[in-house]
C-alpha cells in the first residue's frame, strides 16, 4: 500500500498547475479508491488476526494446562502400575514386535537371576541361555500376528537341575491406532500346584478303586452266601415235606424261616451298600401300575392271611396310561413298607392305595399310601424312622426281626427317584406311610391280566440248565410241586444240544455254568432259532444269584425273556409261566 501512496504523492507533486491537476483528477480518485479498498482489507485482516490470535492463545494456554494435569495423572498411574508390577508375585514382561524384552518386573529379575539392564533389549534365547525357546517364540509370534490373547500356555524349563513348570498368559499390546506394538506376558510358577494336583488325582483314583473293590466284594459275597443259603432253605423244604413227627418238623420250619430271614438280610445289606457306594442306577422301562399292584397283592396276601389280617389294594381309576420308570424299585419300596405294616399289625387291616395326584401331557405324579392298624409309632420317634439301622425299640428287633435297613433303603430309593416319603402315626392306632413319585406317561393301554394265575391249559416241559447239584435239587423239587416235567442240562453246551431236540416249552437258564455260560447258550439258541423254518422263539428265564443290576440287563440283552433271582419261589415262576402259557 505504501508504494501506492508514494505513487499518488509523486503524481500530485508533478501537477504543476490547476489545469494539470484537474486532468489527472480521475486517475487520482481511482488510485485513492484502490488504496481505500486495500486498506479496508488490511484493517479486516489485522483485526481478524488479532481475534484468531487471542482465541488460539487461550486455547493453547488451556490445552497446556490440560496437558500438564493429564501428564501428572499419567505419571501417577504409571507409578501405581510400577508398584503393582513390583508387588505381583508372577513374572510380568512386555516385549516389542521383535520379541525383545522392553519391561520386566522384579519377580522376572529374580527368576532369571539377571538385572533389568541385562534383560531389556534382549530376546528370551539371550536371557535364558539354557532354555530352548523356539516353540515358545512361535507362540508369541502367533499372538502378534493374530492379535488374539492366549491363556494358560504350559512351559517347562530346567534350571540348575530343577524342572520348573510355568503357566503363561499372553496378550497383544496395541497403540491408539490399533496396531500391534508388542505383547505382555504373565507367567506363574505352577510346579508345586501341579505336584499337588497329581497327588490329589492319585488319592482320588485310589479311593475310587477302593470303593469299586468294596462293591465287587459285596456282590461276590452276596452270591457266595446265597448259594449255600439256597441249598439250606431248599433242602430243608424238601425234608419238611417228608417228615411228619412234630418236634423235628418244628425244628425244620425254624431252619427254613431263619434261612429266609438271613436271605432278606443279605439282600438288604447288598442294596444298602450299593446305595451308599452310589452304584445304584435307575431304569426307565414301560410298566403298568395295575399289573404291578396285582403282583404285590399276590405276594402279600399269604402273609396277611397267615396273621388273619385283611389286605386291601386299590388303584385310582383314572390311571389309564402305561408308565415309564423303575418298576422293580417301586415294587421294592411298596413291599418294604407293606411287609412292615403286616409285621407290626396284629389285628385289623393293611391297605395299599395308589392315587393320581397330578397329571399333565407328559407325565403324572402317583401317591402310594400304605395304612395299617398296627402298634403305631411314638411322635418323638417319627423323625428318625428313616435313618439307617433304626428300629424304634431294640426289643422290636428281638420280637420282629429285620435288619433295620428297610425304611432307610426305601427312603433313599424314593429320594433318588425324585420323590418324597412321609409317615404319620398314632401309637396304638396305626401308621400311614406314603410316598409320591413323578413318572413319564406312555400311551393308553388296556391293562393285561397276566397276574392272575389261571390253570395251565397244557402240559409244560422244562429244560433246566443248572450245574450246581443243590440248586438242581431245589429247582427239581419246585418244578415237581408245580406238576411240571423237566430235563436237566449241566452246562451251556448241553443246554444248546438239548434245545435242538425241540421238546421244550421253556428253559430255566443258570448264568454261571462251566464250559458255556447261560449268556452264551442263550445267544447260541437265539441264533439257531433265526435259521429255523418257521422261526420260533422259546421262553428263556434266567436263574441268577447275581443280583447286580448289570447282569439283569445283560440277561435281557442276550435274548432272555425274564429273570428270577435264586432261590426262586414257586409263586414267582408260576406267575411268569402263566403270563406266557395260560392263553
Amino acid at each position, binding site marked *: 500500500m505504501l508504494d501506492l501512496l508514494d505513487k499518488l504523492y509523486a503524481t500530485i507533486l508533478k501537477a504543476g498547475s490547476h489545469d494539470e491537476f484537474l486532468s489527472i483528477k480521475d486517475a487520482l480518485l481511482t488510485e485513492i479508491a484502490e488504496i481505500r479498498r486495500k486498506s479496508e*482489507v488490511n484493517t*479486516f485482516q489485522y483485526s481478524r488476526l488479532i481475534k484468531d490470535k487471542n*482465541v488460539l492463545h487461550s*486455547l493453547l494456554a*488451556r*490445552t497446556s494446562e*490440560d496437558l500438564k494435569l493429564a501428564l501428572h495423572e499419567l505419571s501417577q498411574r504409571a507409578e501405581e502400575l510400577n508398584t503393582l508390577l513390583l508387588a505381583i508375585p508372577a513374572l510380568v514382561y512386555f516385549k516389542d514386535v521383535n520379541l525383545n524384552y522392553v519391561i520386566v518386573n522384579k519377580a522376572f529379575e529374580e527368576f532369571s537371576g539377571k538385572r533389568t539392564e541385562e534383560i531389556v533389549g534382549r530376546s528370551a534365547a539371550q536371557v535364558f541361555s539354557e532354555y530352548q525357546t523356539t516353540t515358545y517364540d512361535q507362540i508369541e509370534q502367533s499372538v502378534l500376528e493374530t492379535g488374539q490373547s492366549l491363556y494358560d500356555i504350559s512351559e517347562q524349563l530346567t534350571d540348575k537341575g530343577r524342572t520348573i513348570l510355568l503357566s503363561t498368559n499372553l496378550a497383544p499390546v496395541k497403540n491408539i491406532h490399533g496396531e500391534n506394538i508388542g505383547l505382555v506376558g504373565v507367567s506363574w510358577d505352577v510346579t508345586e500346584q501341579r505336584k499337588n494336583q497329581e497327588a490329589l488325582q492319585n488319592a482320588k483314583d485310589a479311593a475310587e478303586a477302593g470303593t469299586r473293590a468294596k462293591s465287587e466284594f459285596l456282590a461276590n459275597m452276596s452270591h457266595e452266601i446265597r448259594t449255600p443259603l439256597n441249598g439250606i432253605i431248599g433242602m430243608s423244604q424238601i425234608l419238611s415235606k417228608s417228615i411228619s413227627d412234630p418236634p423235628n418238623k418244628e425244628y425244620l420250619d425254624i431252619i427254613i424261616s431263619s434261612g429266609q430271614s438271613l436271605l432278606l438280610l443279605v439282600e438288604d445289606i447288598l442294596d444298602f451298600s450299593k446305595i451308599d457306594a452310589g452304584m445304584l442306577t435307575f431304569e426307565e422301562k414301560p410298566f403298568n401300575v395295575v399289573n404291578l399292584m396285582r403282583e404285590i397283592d399276590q405276594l402279600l396276601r399269604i402273609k396277611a392271611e397267615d396273621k388273619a389280617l385283611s389286605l386291601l389294594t386299590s388303584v385310582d381309576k383314572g390311571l389309564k396310561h402305561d408308565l415309564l420308570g423303575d418298576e422293580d424299585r417301586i415294587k421294592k419300596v411298596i413291599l418294604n413298607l407293606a411287609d412292615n405294616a403286616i409285621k407290626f399289625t396284629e389285628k385289623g387291616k393293611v391297605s395299599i392305595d395308589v392315587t393320581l395326584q397330578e397329571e399333565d401331557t407328559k407325565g403324572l405324579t402317583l401317591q402310594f399310601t400304605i395304612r395299617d392298624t398296627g402298634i403305631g409309632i411314638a411322635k418323638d420317634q417319627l423323625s428318625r424312622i428313616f435313618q439307617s439301622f433304626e428300629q424304634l425299640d431294640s426289643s422290636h428287633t428281638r420280637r420282629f426281626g429285620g435288619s433295620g435297613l428297610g425304611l432307610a433303603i426305601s427312603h433313599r430309593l424314593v429320594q433318588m427317584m425324585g420323590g418324597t416319603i412321609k409317615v404319620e402315626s398314632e401309637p396304638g392306632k396305626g401308621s400311614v406311610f406314603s410316598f409320591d413319585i413323578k413318572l413319564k406317561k406312555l400311551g393308553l393301554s388296556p391293562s393285561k391280566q397276566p397276574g392272575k394265575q389261571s390253570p395251565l391249559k397244557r402240559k409244560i416241559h422244562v429244560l433246566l440248565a443248572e450245574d450246581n447239584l443243590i440248586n438242581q435239587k431245589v429247582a427239581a423239587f419246585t418244578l415237581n410241586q408245580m406238576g411240571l416235567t423237566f430235563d436237566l442240562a449241566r452246562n451251556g453246551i448241553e443246554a444248546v444240544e438239548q434245545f435242538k431236540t425241540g421238546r421244550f416249552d421253556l428253559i430255566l437258564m443258570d448264568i454261571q455254568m462251566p464250559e458255556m455260560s447261560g449268556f452264551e447258550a442263550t445267544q447260541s439258541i437265539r441264533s439257531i432259532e433265526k435259521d429255523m423254518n418257521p422261526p420260533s422263539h422259546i421262553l428263556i428265564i434266567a436263574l441268577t444269584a447275581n443280583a447286580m443290576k448289570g447282569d439283569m440287563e445283560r440277561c435281557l440283552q442276550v435274548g432272555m425273556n425274564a429273570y428270577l433271582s435264586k432261590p426262586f419261589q414257586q409263586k414267582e415262576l408260576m406267575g411268569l409261566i402263566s403270563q406266557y402259557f395260560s392263553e
Partner: protein
Amino acid sequence: MKARSMLISSIKSLDKQLESFFELGFNPNLAIVFTSISLPIKELMMVFERRNIRLAGCTSCGEIAVYDGFSGISEQSAAVMLIEIPDNQFSIDIINGNGLSSYELGLKAAQQGKGIFNDRAMIVMASGLKVNGQALIEGILSETGPGTPIFGGLAGDDAHFVETWVFDQKQLLNNGIIVVNFDSSKIRVSGLATSGWISLGADLKVTSSTDNVVFAIDGQPALDVYKRYLSVSEDDLPAIGVEYPLMLKRNDGTTALRAVMGVDKQARSLIFAGSVPEGSLVNFSSSPGFEVIDFTRKNLESFSLSSRHADCMLLFSCMARHLALGPLVIEEIDLSKSLWKAPLAGFFTYGEIGINSAGQCDFHNQTYTIVLLESIETIQ
C-alpha cells in the same frame, strides 16, 4: 431454462426489476429468494403471488448475487433467482414443523414430494433455531435413499439468533421447511460442499447430550467449556461458536463441523445446528486463515471437471466464512462466477446441506456449498 438473478434492497426495486424483465420477454414462473429479516417479507411474498410466480424462500444472514458481470454481497437486502422452466418440471412443498421432531419434519417433507417425478433432486431450506440439521437430512434420506441429490441451507436472521423463517408466496413459517423438487430427467442438479476448517487443541469428550443439545463436555457444563477454552464471555455466544465450531469425530472416521445455534444460560447447555452424540470426541476448530480461499478454489476446480455447465447457481455459504474472510469473501464468490459464468443467488447461512467431496449427502457447517442447475435439453 432461462434464469436471471438480482440483489434488491426494497420491494419497490424488486417490482421495478421484474417489470423490466417482462419487457425483455423473460417470464419467470419460479423464484428462489433469500432475504434479510429487515425487509417486509409479507409484501415481498405478495409481489410474487400477484404475478403468479411460485416462490420458495428463506431469511438470511447476508445476501449474495452474481449477474451481468456484477458480483456482490450485501446486507438488509434480498438475493433473488428467477427461473423460467416448464411448470411440470418442479414442485414446491412447505411444511410446518410444529409438533414434529427434526427427523419427522424431514421425513414428512420427503414424503410429500414423493411420486411426482421418477427421480428428483431437492433444494431444501429450513427455519427454526432448534432444528437439528443432521436429523432433518436423515429424515429426508430415510425416504429418498442416498442417491437423491439434496442441497440447501438453514435460514438466518442477520446474526440475531432469535427467529428465522421459510416461506412460499402464501405461507410464512418460523419453524418449518420448504422444498423445491426438480424432475431429475429434465433438470440436472449437482453441487459441492467444501469447508477447509481445521481442528485445534486436544480431543474433548461429550459427556452429556441429547440430539443437538450438549449439556456437558469432559464433565463440565458445555457453555463453561466454551468460555474457558476461548476466553470469551457468555454474550459472545452463540456467534463465537459459529466462528469456532466443534469438529465432531464420527465412528466411521469422518468428521463433521457443528456450529453453536443457541445458548441456554440456565442449563449451561449449547444448542448445535446438528446432532452431537453423547460419548463422541470433539475438538475446537477454526478457519486456517485466508488460505481457505485456495482450498475452496482447488475443490471447485476439480468439481468443475465433471460439472462444466450451469444455467444458474445457488450458493449456501456459512455466515462464519463471511466473518472469517471479511471483504475477501467476495474472492471466494468470484471463483464460481469465473468457473461457470452463470447467474447466482445465495446467502450466508446457519448451516448447509450438500454433497461433500467424498460423494455423501450430509449436513454441514462452515462450508461453501455451490449448487448448479442445468436444463438437460440445454445439455443435449
